[in-house]
């Protein structure tokens, strides 16, 4: 049970999802979850103007990808993800890895790594 992890990737929201999913499927990832988030980090902001009202935007639309894995080594995912997402410009994003205690598949009732 201690060998399950959540890999959380926060990256550009213009990422080509299809390519990303393909890459993940290659290394055996079966499921993942996406959410639209907003982030601020190192990428520089810009200004929007609405009838003279300046709105400084340093919060960007980002894509969050969550993948819980056990059998697939976390490092493989990191490597694969980095290779797809790396552009070398500010805004490429971050990967965070968290420990996962337990996993259950609601449909089958399976628990632990088997549920993934």
């Amino acid at each position, binding site marked *: 049970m201690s060998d399950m992890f959540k890999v959380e990737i926060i990256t550009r929201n213009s990422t080509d999802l299809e390519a990303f999913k393909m890459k993940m499927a290659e290394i055996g990832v079966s499921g993942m979850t996406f959410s639209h988030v907003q982030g601020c980090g190192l990428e520089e902001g810009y200004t929007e103007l*609405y009838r*003279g009202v300046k709105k400084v935007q340093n919060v960007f639309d980002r894509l969050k990808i969550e993948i819980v894995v056990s059998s697939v080594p976390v490092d493989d995912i990191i490597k694969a993800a980095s290779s797809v997402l790396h552009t070398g410009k500010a805004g490429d994003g971050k990967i965070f890895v968290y420990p996962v205690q337990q996993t259950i598949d609601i449909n089958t009732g399976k628990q632990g790594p088997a549920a993934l």
Partner: protein
Amino acid sequence: MDMANTVFMFVATVLVWLMTPALALFYGGLVRSKNVLSTAMHSFTTLAIVSIIWIVIGFSLAFSSGNGIIGGLDYFGLNNVGFDPAEGHTIPFNLFMMFQMTFAILTTAIVSGAYAERIRFPAFILFTVLWVLIVYSPLAHWVWGGGWIAEMGALDFAGGNVVHISSGLAGLVVALVIGKRKNAGATAPHNLIFTLIGGVLLWFGWFGFNVGSELAFDDVAMYAFINTNTAAAAGVLGWMIIEWAVNKKPTLLGAVSGAIAGLVAITPAAGFVSPIASIPIGFIGGIVCFWGVGWLKKKLGYDDALDAFGLHAVGGTWGGIATGLFASDSINAIVTNNGLFYGGGIDLLWRQVVAIVATYIFVGVVTFILISIVNLIFKARATDEEEAKGLDLTMHGERAYQD
């Protein structure tokens, strides 16, 4: 009675009617999503309230003979307002009444842009009722009902003073009295496509507004038609170019605002100037309104949320002056004194300025008194919590968007 003119005025009337719903969209798109229903309600409820008030008493106060300051009660409850044309008209008198109704509705609704996102609904309603009776009706009487501005010989083809200066200034006064929104400097329009829809329907309706103001389809009406479209187009270009130069990017909101600015500017001049003259009128209209909503507003520090003042009063003032510059008797025989640029000297210009100043003083003072009274009866300003949660939920118990 001329039936072709009558059918034309029916069309013009429904076109102007459409402008108030258009305003609901134009304004609604500009606020944050938590206030869109509240903002749209202001225009929509004004449509309902003024429709009733107008047939009961408003039209009478504005257009029955009375004295130089206000009309009488001859047309109370549409008494004496029948199908027969008024003297000098070729259309049914009750159609004229309907046409004028749409102006009263629109003018009153424009005001609401200034105090959007922070007024309480009961105060809004009371203010609206009072304002249309005590500010709009007398003013309409002065200019169109045989009152003193008409007498003086100032020109206002379709309502630069009556509609735009009056509503814009009233908005500013109310905005000053009820104060700024929290966070006023960090808001952004929640849906510019609604603003676009509203803006183009305003332009569309303005063909009824300006062309219909001739009350007949003749050569002057055709000038008004061409000028209206031309000035709107020039307003778009004026705003876009100055914005591009100053802010480095031309925006859609700017382009739409420029159209409205051009339309406001041509309103008092539409039937008095040539199509070629309407290009600078609209173009400069776009530029002065850009200055009004950008520089002036920031400088003076008021929170005219949706720029009722910056577009309508600023644009309307320019339009009134422009009429004094460009009016020409070769366009409309009613012009007895050409504008400055057409060899008429500053005579007309001077009367235009007097009419504008009188409008500012009257509207400014009376609106201030009205909103102060309203504020005593119902607290006009929303509480901090109401403002934070949004007026849609707190005033109307609804949300505009859901799954």
